[in-house]
């Protein structure tokens, strides 16, 4: 029975998972040993594995990014300011995992509060890329992507504010899905930029990432931005034909500066989509060049507001000082360099005299970017782009150059700005390093991008 058949047949799921997944002891031993990746910030103890329901994930261990609240395990957001913090409640996505029978294997490393593209901004040290330990795994959900790529678990949850699920999935050679804004409840996801944040899924295959998405999606009365829309069987979409699907190729996502080997792999992926029955069509998204500055104004503005709550009074760490204001300042001084940088930028762009020049302009730009997508999706079913301009880069290469680091997200932030779903699927290797192709769909178009990704995955699978 194929992997696909085993997952689709729920009665076979336990056997399949039981025979292929690592135990908690295995994960701890690997992480503590010389080959450890620092992918996990906490691995569950057997007593943490609460009794759970029967469902399509029965007996499956799933890892969670450490900005998703759990009651039994700490939730640190990769920050010294929340070190040891235990949430009094559990995220809706985690509850849904348990109801589906999943076991929570542990909490994975991330850039502090999700702010970064390499997982080097964690207060608890960087995660290493399992493909090549001298490289970053991407970020900010680098721990989740590395845990799946290393085979610690088959599935993990991440969060994606500007590409934080898709880019690490691409760097580690696994599948990452950021669904439509509102598809998965954000209740219990610690906020970075509330109008952009979305929980996403990472899987070793398109089918597994899709099944995980299906389990955690759906309306939640505790998140007013979650949508009251039925959840399709995404696992079925993963094996659906794409005959007749129109795939748009946005010219702005294929700049001349792309390395020729990267470009060659992208062209080959387009050809494979056509060979699977799709029709390719060039389209234009003219405001793409403004996406990065737009994103970094809006995301930092929202972050400066969301992170104001970490003041030493309501959550986490407190540094003693004489006077309340001094205590606030010293406590918040525990934030890492990137978080401070973003809080400062966000405070500046929201300050009197600069608000309209930056924040107001960025909001209008966001609408223009969303309008580009609406226009494109009148002509095509999905869009195909690179996930990232390059494969994984060396640890330390971009830490001191924030603009270079921000530009890593150039192809992913637009989906968050427009609220549309995006998916990264492996499309081969450049110099031995995995490269991801990104599929973007219209609002609630997850099934379309999953089908296209499934077709690509099947096409590459036929080669091996």
């Amino acid at each position: 029975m194929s992997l696909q058949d085993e997952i689709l047949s729920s009665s076979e799921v336990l056997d399949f998972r039981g025979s292929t997944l690592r135990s908690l002891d295995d994960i701890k031993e690997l992480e503590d040993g010389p080959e450890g990746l620092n992918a996990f910030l906490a691995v569950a103890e057997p007593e943490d594995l609460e009794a759970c329901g029967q469902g399509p994930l029965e007996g499956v261990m799933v890892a969670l990014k450490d900005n998703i609240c759990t009651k039994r395990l700490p939730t640190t957001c990769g920050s010294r300011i929340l070190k040891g913090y235990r949430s009094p409640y559990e995220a809706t996505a985690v509850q849904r995992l348990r109801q589906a029978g999943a076991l929570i294997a542990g909490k994975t490393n991330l850039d502090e509060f999700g702010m970064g593209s390499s997982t080097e901004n964690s207060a608890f040290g960087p995660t290493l890329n399992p493909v090549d330990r001298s490289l970053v795994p991407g970020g900010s959900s680098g721990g989740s992507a590395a845990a799946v790529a290393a085979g610690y678990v088959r599935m993990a949850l991440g969060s994606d504010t500007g590409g934080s699920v898709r880019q690490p999935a691409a760097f580690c050679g696994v599948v990452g899905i950021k669904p439509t804004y509102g598809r998965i409840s954000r209740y219990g996801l610690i906020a970075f930029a509330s109008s952009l944040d979305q929980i996403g899924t990472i899987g070793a295959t398109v089918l597994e990432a899709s099944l995980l998405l299906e389990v955690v999606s759906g309306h939640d009365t505790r998140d007013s931005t979650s949508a009251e829309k039925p959840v399709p069987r995404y696992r079925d979409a993963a094996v659906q034909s794409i005959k007749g699907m129109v795939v748009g190729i946005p010219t702005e996502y294929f700049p001349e500066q792309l390395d020729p080997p990267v470009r060659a792999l992208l062209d080959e992926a387009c050809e494979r989509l056509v060979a699977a029955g799709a029709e390719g069509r060039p389209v234009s998204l003219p405001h793409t060049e403004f996406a990065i500055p737009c994103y970094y104004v809006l995301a930092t503005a929202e972050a400066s507001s969301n992170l104001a709550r970490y003041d030493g009074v309501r959550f986490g760490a407190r540094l003693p000082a004489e006077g309340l204001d001094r205590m606030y300042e010293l406590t918040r001084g525990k934030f890492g360099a990137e978080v401070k940088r973003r809080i400062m930028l966000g405070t500046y762009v929201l300050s009197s005299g600069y608000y309209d020049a930056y924040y107001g302009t960025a909001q209008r730009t966001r609408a223009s970017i969303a309008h580009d997508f609406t226009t494109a999706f009148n002509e095509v079913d999905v869009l195909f782009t690179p996930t990232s301009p390059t494969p994984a880069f060396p640890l330390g290469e971009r830490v001191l150059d924030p603009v270079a680091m921000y530009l890593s997200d150039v192809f992913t932030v637009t989906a968050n700005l427009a609220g549309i779903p995006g998916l990264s699927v492996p499309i081969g290797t450049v110099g031995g390093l995995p490269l991801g192709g990104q599929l973007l769909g219209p609002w609630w178009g997850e099934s379309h991008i999953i089908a296209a990704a499934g077709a690509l995955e099947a096409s590459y699978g036929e080669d091996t």
Partner: protein
Amino acid sequence: MSVSARDVQRIGELARLHLEDDELERLTLDLNAILRHVDSLRDLGSTKQPEDSSQIGPKLTPVSHEHFEGPDKLHEMPEDFAPEWKEGFFIVPAPPGVNPSGDQ
């Protein structure tokens, strides 16, 4: 636009962040590099904006206001609708066990 070290110090105060001297210097450089990049947004000023720039995503059904009473009470002065009001405070019954006169 650019920021000086003094500006950065002031932003830090607004954000309630304690910054060491070396952080101040580094942040001034970083913020100026980022702002140079962000300033490209100004180039967009001359391009055509969508008609409804407030709409991101699918059209939502407008909320019906027919069930709402108006105007919002909070737009009136509290003394206009407070049951009891004295010297800028609401007058409410004392909680159980508390002597309103303050005597023990």
